[in-house]
């Protein structure tokens, strides 16, 4: 279980998270929604310890990771897989080396096995025969899918997806949604997904959390969210310009 307790985070004067509390249940797909620039990526980075809160605690299976040393943090991180919003592929390595990276680091596999796993993971994100390409030769959507393949290569217990379907065509979007659902089912993984694609969200999520103004203002099943009378959520779901969410 992932538990965020009273998280405060600012960058200089910019207060991004303001006393945020959230409990994410194991074995479910939880989607975090919220306005652009609202701090969703920042929240995700707190879960994996890339950012440390100014105040508050982050509990992963009851361990406070904000107070851990390098070694212990790394032990916990081995449970994780993460897809970055901009994929964050190593651009000095080929696609194959990118996907193989976690395998080489943490799994004792032969070269043959590694090649097989890499090909399999790439196939699951709809890519074949691009192993020897460099990331700079790929399109944005392809890069994102390679990043996805890398995130799930080690079959992690917890997978964090930062906008996995943004920039993909409808067919590919559907395929990735399916991949997330399958990953969760097959590995019984905990998936935390950031997404702006409402249709997909309601299709795949077990729980939805709405981040607004540095805090989670609504947290519940898709049906509960849809039925919510909170004006912020109503405006967000309808996508209307009028309402409490100000554009400027």
């Amino acid at each position, binding site marked *: 279980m992932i538990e965020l307790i009273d998280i405060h985070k600012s960058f200089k004067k910019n207060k991004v998270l303001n006393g945020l509390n959230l409990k994410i249940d194991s074995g479910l797909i939880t989607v975090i929604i919220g306005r652009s620039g609202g701090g969703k990526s920042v929240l995700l*980075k707190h879960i*994996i310890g*890339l950012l440390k809160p100014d105040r508050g605690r982050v509990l992963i299976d009851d361990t406070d990771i904000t107070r851990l040393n*390098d070694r212990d943090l*790394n*032990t916990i*991180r*081995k449970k*994780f897989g*993460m897809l*970055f919003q*901009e994929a*964050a*592929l*190593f*651009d*000095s390595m080929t696609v194959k080396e990118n996907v193989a*990276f*976690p395998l080489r*680091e*943490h799994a004792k596999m032969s070269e043959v096995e590694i090649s097989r796993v890499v090909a399999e993971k790439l196939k699951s994100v709809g890519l074949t025969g691009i192993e020897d390409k460099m990331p700079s030769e790929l399109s944005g959507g392809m890069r994102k899918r390679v990043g996805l393949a890398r995130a799930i290569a080690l079959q992690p217990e917890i997978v964090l997806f930062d906008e996995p379907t943004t920039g993909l065509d409808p067919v590919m979007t559907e395929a990735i949604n399916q991949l997330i659902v399958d990953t969760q089912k097959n590995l019984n993984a905990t998936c935390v997904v950031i997404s702006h694609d409402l249709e997909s969200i309601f299709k795949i999520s077990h729980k939805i959390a709405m981040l607004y103004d540095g805090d989670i203002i609504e947290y519940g099943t898709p049906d509960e969210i849809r039925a919510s009378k909170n004006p912020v959520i109503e405006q967000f779901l309808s996508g209307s310009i009028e309402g409490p969410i100000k554009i400027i």
Partner: protein
Amino acid sequence: MNRAAVAIDQLGRTVLEYVEEMGKIALLFLSVLRWMFQPPLKSHLIFKQMEFVGNKSIFVVVLTGAFTGMVMALQGYYGFKMFSAESMVGSVVALGMTRELGPVLTSLMVTARAGSAMAAELGTMRVTEQIDALSVMAANPVKHLIVPRVIAGVLMLPLLTVVSDFMGILGGYFVGVHLLHINSGIFVKNITTIVDLDDLYNGLVKAAVFGLILSLIGCYKGFNTRGGAEGVGKATTEAVVLSSITILISDYFLTAIMF
């Protein structure tokens, strides 16, 4: 607060920042040492960096070394001619190259070529979250990115300096013997009697220290880049400036200690 107080406050902050930066670089060095001795060593990464720092710098180093030696020979010739001691030109070129110009010029060239590239590469990795990706995959960024570069710097700089020394002396020989018609036997004899093994080796020790400085500072600046493409540019410039200054300053102290 009045202006003076603000100025003093600013000065204090700047000094403290500078001291803190030096401290951080020193601590980064400690952390590099710590990770260097934790197996497994990423040998393919080290070789890749050695090729980048070493092999790919050969051309510039050969060129700067040779021309430096040639210029020294020419200048030395005019000076020594006044005392009819033209044959000393060889030893001046050789001594100058092995003790000072070989290590310093090589390090400055490599700083410009590889130190800046290290800062730019790590800087880009930082702003495109590749370093975060490393951390997330429980791979220590210092071990993966900085250790190989520092090892490559420390090992390759002395080798490049050997090449530079050699080319400098060769260039000096060419100018002295072929263009200025100094007797070749005396030219060489003067080199071998005046230059000591210690001159050569101390120069190489200097080069290794400079290699450490330029790779460490390049990595430090890249690693701590903030703010997009502009930040990467800034980090690169800062790395080259800080490395060059530190190399020249430490050269003075190394010379004072060694010779």
